[in-house]
């Protein structure tokens, strides 16, 4: 019979550990040595297991260390890889956090340090092994389920406590990409995600849609505003760093690949995406265009936007960008915006938009590898300098001077 309950003895010498941690990364191995020397990390009294001061010292030392100032992320990563990547210490750490949720808080940086530790913790489903060995470990096993349970409890508790603004981006990315998959009950995140998505004043919630979609797919979650929110927040995609937006587009393509989406939604999104392309950087356009193409393949209805059998004449573009998805009249419009991309400065983009002018070959494009700016530069740089053209001074004299450096 295994023991469930874990308690902590009070620390005896947390300061030594803290001073060692203050000393920098070289001293981390000394901390590890101190831990590995100990022969009895756990003692069992009846049905209760107690973590001995050897371990409590370390935990409290880390707590004291993070209380005093901002912990750099690299430092947090180093501490984790040396100490908490082991099953026993992993469980001790999370149990300690469960018992003392505000342990890692600090006056200046609030919960920033805590999140740095949490984000960099390995997944509980990884194969982790105990660092130490003692007889008591046989009675108190560090199984995957135990790890998952403490991990989930701590994450949920901390999520609802709040995330500082500087950590929102990494926490959300970690949450949607991997943490949710480790949860036994991810639906517990529903409230958090909904609140995040619908948070006023920011459009970053668009990245939380991935978590919502996961809940909808795996847990039968209902979120009727999914596409409305997507549509409303999509134009903000260009305001975020392009590497984040590019990651989003991969998921976005899978949302739009459902054949059950009404035509008006697809049309609205198609129109939006093509407008985004008018201001997006090369790497973002290079993934948006294939996803746009896939929409046309998956939804035959919206092919009207590219090619109408009976063209109608309008006063102007019937599409209303500011209206909601239902009222935007995207179905009556056409994809005029793409005509600009045919004159895009990058030849790869021009070739990627080529499908818009011909009959779409009905094979969906799953290549969402963005055209990285480095590649764009390399390709441009690769050209030979033989027979290179130079600006002819005679032509320059004929044209008006450009005065490049003048405001």
């Amino acid at each position, binding site marked *: 019979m295994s023991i469930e309950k874990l308690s902590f003895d009070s620390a005896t010498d947390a300061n030594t550990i803290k001073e060692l941690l203050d000393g920098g990364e070289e001293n981390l191995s000394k901390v590890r040595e101190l831990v590995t020397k100990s022969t009895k990390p756990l003692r069992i009294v009846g049905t209760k297991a107690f973590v001995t001061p050897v371990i409590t010292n370390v935990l409290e030392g880390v707590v004291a260390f993070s209380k005093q100032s901002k912990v750099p992320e690299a430092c947090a990563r180093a501490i984790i890889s040396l100490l908490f990547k082991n099953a026993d210490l992993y469980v001790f750490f999370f149990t300690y956090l469960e018992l003392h949720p505000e342990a890692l808080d600090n006056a200046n940086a609030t919960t920033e340090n805590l999140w740095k530790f949490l984000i960099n913790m390995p997944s509980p489903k990884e194969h982790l092994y105990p660092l130490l060995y003692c007889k008591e470990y046989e009675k108190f096993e560090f199984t995957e389920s135990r790890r998952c349970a403490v991990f989930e409890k701590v994450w949920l508790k901390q999520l609802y406590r709040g995330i500082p603004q500087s950590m929102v981006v990494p926490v959300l990315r970690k949450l949607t990409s991997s943490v949710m998959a480790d949860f036994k009950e991810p639906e517990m995140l529903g409230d958090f995600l909904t609140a995040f998505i619908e948070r006023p004043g*920011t*459009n970053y919630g668009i990245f939380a849609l991935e978590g919502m979609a996961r809940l909808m797919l795996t847990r039968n979650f209902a979120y009727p505003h999914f596409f409305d929110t997507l549509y409303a927040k999509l134009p903000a995609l260009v*305001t975020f760093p392009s590497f984040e937006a590019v990651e989003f587009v991969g998921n976005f393509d899978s949302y739009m690949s459902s054949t059950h989406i009404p035509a008006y939604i697809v049309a609205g999104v198609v129109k939006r995406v093509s407008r985004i392309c008018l201001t997006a950087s090369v790497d973002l356009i290079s993934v948006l265009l294939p996803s746009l193409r896939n929409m046309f393949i998956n939804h035959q209805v919206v092919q009207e936007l590219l090619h109408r059998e009976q063209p109608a004449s309008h006063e102007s573009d019937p599409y209303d*960008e500011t209206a909601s998805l239902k009222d935007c009249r995207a179905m009556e419009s056409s994809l*005029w915006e793409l005509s600009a991309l045919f004159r895009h*400065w990058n030849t790869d983009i021009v070739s990627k938009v080529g499908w818009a002018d011909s009959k779409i070959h009905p094979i969906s494009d799953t290549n969402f590898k963005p055209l990285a700016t480095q590649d764009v530069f390399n*390709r441009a740089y690769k*050209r030979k*300098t033989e027979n*290179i053209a130079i600006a002819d001074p005679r032509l320059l004299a004929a044209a008006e001077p450009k005065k490049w450096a003048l405001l």
Partner: protein
Amino acid sequence: MGKNKKPRERKAKVEKTNPFELKYNVQRTTSAKGRRNVVAVGKPKASVAMEKRAKTIGVEVKRQGIVNAIRDGRVGERSKHLSEEAKASMRYVEARRAAPKRFKFNLEDNDAAGDEEDFTLTHKGESITKVKRYEKPEVDSDPELDSNVVALANFGGGNLGFKMTDEDGQRRQFSRKDLLHEVISKSKDAKMIKQMARDDLVTAAETLDEKFKLFKASGELAKLASLPVTKFPPVPENHCDDYDEIYNTLIFDTTRKAMPTLSEKEKAEREAAKLRELEAERQKRMESDSESDGGDEPKSKKKKKANKDGFNVVYDEEGNIKGDIDAMKIKAPTDDHIGADEEVDDFYADDSDAEGDEAEDDEAEDGVDEDSEVEAEDGESEDASDDDEEEVDDDDDEEAESEEEESAPVDAPLPAMKTRDPPAPTTSKTPTKGKLLEDTSVPFVFDMPKTYADFRNLYTEYFVDQWPTVTDRLIKCHHPSLAEGNKRRMGKLFRFGLRFYDNLAKSLAAAQLSPMIEVLRKFQALNIEASASVARSLLLHKRAQFKPAPKAIARPTATFDIIAFFAAIGELFPTSDRVHAVTTPTFVFALEVLRLSQINSVQSVGVTLLMARIVAKWIQESQKFVPELINAIRILLELSVETKPGDYLLDPFAYRHISRKNGVPNALVVKSKETLPEAVVDSAELFKPEPALSDAALKLHLLRSLFGLIDLTVAVYERLPLAFGAIFAPHLILLQRIDASNYPAELKSLLTAVTEKLQSKTTEFAPREDRQRKVIHKVKCIKMVDPVFENDFDATNPLRGQRRLDPEAETNKLRKMVRKEKRGAMKELRLDAKFLALEQQQRDSRIRNERKEKTNQILHSLQVQESDYKKRKLKKF
């Protein structure tokens, strides 16, 4: 044998007819039904055609080889149109052509002249022996007959009709023998006279020679030679004027060609035509997608190239990593090998021509340089703004130290930080130093600057307006056509120039940049490829400093040297080309700078605006669509309106390169009344630590510039009417939100003008019709045949009149005729050949028979002789 033989009467030979050769005619008679009357017509005889042939080609064949005519083969003689002179010249040409080659150069054999004939007597410049009068007659060993005599003897003997009286006093016919006799005697007489004359000449020449030898031996000749020349009357010299000189030089200078002299108008026209040609070429480059020869090379080819390169030496002799590698270092590891086909030019290498110590010094300097760079790169961290500056300083410090050995004055990009007294670039504009020479003009000869320090010293010594002269003279002294390797040196000068330019930019000497660009342009024209690779290496260097990492959110605001770099590239290389080895990667870098450059003050807003302007000017001609530019303008517009809920600038996660502190989100909002600065503000003002303009004034200036930029983009993107509304509608909304109450009047009018223009264009270009892709259906038509109605259709003969109706009847008819005629002609030709063969056969048989008969006759006479001989032998007397 007294048989009286009667000649046997021969029966008339009746020719038997060959029944197979007979021809029959079938006569149909109506007398009895079905009865046929076959009548033998007879053996066919030679046709009329054959008779005709006998009269035509038969005659020709008989005359062949028998009848001929004399044709005058002399050159040009048969022509009636040529004059005598023309004929003569043609004959001359023919004779020259026929002449053997060894006479081509008319070389005299000088070896034959012996010791005795040291002197040749001349008369009026010509050898005396060549003058006819003093000709030394050759002894004629083989006297030829006078041509007249020969002619008379051979052909003139026809006229023998007259009588003559011979020695006997008898008149008799003048015979051929007499004639020959006379001819011989006459020719003998003539020869004798000639011989005598020759002998006289020889004796006269010999006596003169003797006399001359005596005269020479007496030494009088030497005296004559020593006489002063002045005594002789001046020889009238063949005066050589300018024309002749030019003529003589041109004869030997085959590279020059005669050109017609041009009037001013013609010159202008030519210039215009040349310009048109250049413009057309530029347009072509703008449209042509010739990326295949650059970027999309087949992989196998690339591989081969890489193999050929073998390995690159990454470390120098001292084991330090070479400088050009660290430029590449920050790049994300990609499969593509950058510039596999060319060496990456080490931009800051001061290599010289491997001449002695200097080269070594340079190498040492390089080593130090690279060390510092490598160190800086190693210590690379996320907030690299300070790092970068340090790196630059390090560079120059090290440089300075190593250059001290060369006792050369040193400039620094940041003159304020230097304690030494170098003629910093900024000082060259005004004559502050006593060293500057007002009175001395620019010298005409310059040494080739071997190192960057030399180059810098050379240019800092002179005023900016003297730079073109200095450059021109420098180029003239070391023009690529003067010596081998000068072209390479020009490339190096371009590198020094670009580095100097870069340093000028770093020290914010904006006024000297455009003169330096003109200098660079001159070096560039002399070695285009080197200049391109130098520019590319500087691009790599600048990009390495800017560090646009793949996951970068923002980079420190671009410095003025980056802006100046874009300006230089834009000036030196065509920005309108669709793909260009220098401008395209530079443009990519410019977009990166535009996208990532941090905005944290009004000045940095100005930098972004400046970058946007550069990008807009870059695509002004090619009119390429640049979404990054549209986005940048939108950001700038958002900065110039008061934020309200829903704006992206209030979203803490959006536009992470824009700081939210210090009122940056409202950086361009004008809150108090200010006057607009009149003058055009130099962009270098943005980068100065203590700006001359106040923030408020700068704001107004930036707004004016922003409205100008929008105007420019509107003009550029007018070519995209379908997307125009979608591109500019958000701009318009933001423009309408701008609170212009505090704007000066000029700015206000500018804003309304831009807004109205955008409004009218948006409505003008609003798409009126749905998109409709052009679908070209290939329609397969069934061939339709129109029925023809015949009024008098004859059922028994349905094909009657078909031929008439056939539209191709005429053609068919003609074709048939041609075929028939062809067949007839072939038959005719065949029969001609047959006839000729027959003729030949007959002629041969006739000759054969004749020969046979003659042989028989001879044999017969021989037999008779033989029998006579035998009879005589046997006869017993």
